[in-house]
């Protein structure tokens, strides 16, 4: 039964499922960024008419899943599994949306890597024959994350240049067996890598080794070169983590530079005061679902490696002196005609 495994840690999908629809909803700040035109909805404010930011995040995730289903011309009843996650304690955004969707639900926590984690898992569920349609949703919200992980939003604290800015947004994807759309062909599930980074203001450095490890493993397992991809894109390493990943992979014999980008760098302009770049569960979700997928559909990209990156940071463990572990999952997405 191991015939779908490739190398040590990669699976290849013999019956690759298609990404039949995506939805990307973002907050106002992301709506002022360079990718604004690619998002389905840009919210006018971060409360979305709700009483709390947590409720706003839930509403945004709900809207994203609704929109993706509508684009796929499916009803919630057609969904075999709902895979979702976010950054909040007990992943409440995902849980409360799952309450409404009321279909078999797997709540995931991979910090900011959750979109790639869910894509990989959903693709395997379909390829394995356990599901026909899978709905995926992830979200993050700058202010819910800020008050949970750092300080009250009105606290006058200075952010150092290594800090990242949590993206306000929600992304949703519908995966379907035999549907029309780009195909998920390979999944490399990552290992937790911890290089003893402890700075809570620098997640990029904490995640970079995990990203490099997963990309290296993927290339080893598939026998591909970086140039086999039109784009290798990490989730939210930012301006600090991206060059570190680049260096680590060069040392390991792979030159990513010509095809390498990072969603956290792509989502904001440098003058938006986001410091190292965007981060958060929504970051790779909206950049992938909004921008990258459209580029695959338009033919500009034929083969993309999405590498979701997550810092498994907890204020509690950090205060107890623990370092910040990182994780990264790689998902290869290819235009349908490339695979044929």
């Amino acid at each position, binding site marked *: 039964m191991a015939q779908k495994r490739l190398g040590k840690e990669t699976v290849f999908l013999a019956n690759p499922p298609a990404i039949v629809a995506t939805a990307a909803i973002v*907050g*106002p*700040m992301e709506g002022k960024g360079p990718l604004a035109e690619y998002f389905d909805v840009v919210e006018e404010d*971060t*409360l979305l008419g709700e009483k709390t*930011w947590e409720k706003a995040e839930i509403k945004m995730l709900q809207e994203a899943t609704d929109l993706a289903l509508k684009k796929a011309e499916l009803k919630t009843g057609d969904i075999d599994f709902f895979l979702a996650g976010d950054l909040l304690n007990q992943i409440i955004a995902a849980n409360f949306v799952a309450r409404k969707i009321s279909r078999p639900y797997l709540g995931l926590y991979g910090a900011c890597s959750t979109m790639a984690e869910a894509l990989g898992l959903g693709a395997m569920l379909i390829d394995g024959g356990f599901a026909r349609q899978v709905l995926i949703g992830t979200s993050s919200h700058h*202010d819910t994350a800020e008050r949970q992980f750092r300080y009250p939003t009105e606290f006058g604290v200075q952010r150092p240049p290594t800090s990242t800015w949590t993206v*306000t947004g929600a992304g949703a994807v519908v995966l379907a067996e035999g549907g029309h759309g780009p195909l998920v062909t390979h999944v490399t599930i990552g290992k937790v890598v911890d290089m003893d980074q402890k700075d809570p203001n620098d997640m990029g450095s904490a995640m970079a080794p995990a990203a490099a490890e997963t990309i290296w493993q993927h290339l080893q397992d598939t026998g591909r070169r970086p140039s086999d991809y039109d784009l290798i894109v990490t989730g939210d390493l930012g301006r600090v983590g991206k060059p570190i990943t680049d260096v680590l992979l060069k040392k390991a014999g792979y030159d990513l530079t010509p095809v390498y980008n990072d969603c956290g760098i792509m989502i904001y302009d440098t003058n938006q005061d986001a410091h190292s770049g965007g981060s958060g569960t929504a970051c790779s979700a909206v950049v992938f679902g909004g921008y990258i997928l459209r580029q695959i559909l338009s033919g500009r990209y034929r083969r993309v490696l999405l590498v979701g990156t997550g810092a498994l940071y907890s204020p509690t463990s950090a205060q107890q002196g623990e370092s910040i572990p990182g994780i990264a999952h790689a998902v290869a997405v290819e235009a349908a005609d490339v695979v044929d």
Partner: protein
Amino acid sequence: MDYAMAFLVGGVICALAQVVMDVGKILPAYVMVLFVCLGAVASGFGLYGWLIQVGNAGATIPLPNFGHALVAGILEDAAQKGWLGLLSGGLRATAMPLTMAIMAGYLFALLFSAHGKGNG
């Protein structure tokens, strides 16, 4: 002249704190704790009283003054009632700012909600 000295002394204390935070990569809460303790210690050596003479509000507005005010309050009470002053002097001397902080904190929390930063 008073104003210039206030600006200078207050500015230098804050600049020092900034250097400690940036060079040591220390979280702001730790810098605040450190400086308020330094204020109390400096007060013990009589340095903070001197700094106030020089800089007026430049010395009394930054947080180290809170440590100094506590020490000064305790010593004042101790002069009248001995060791009991250890327990009574500190909060007596700082009652006004602390009570104001609690009142203003509660009042503004009732009147305003956090605005958040996600709007960019």
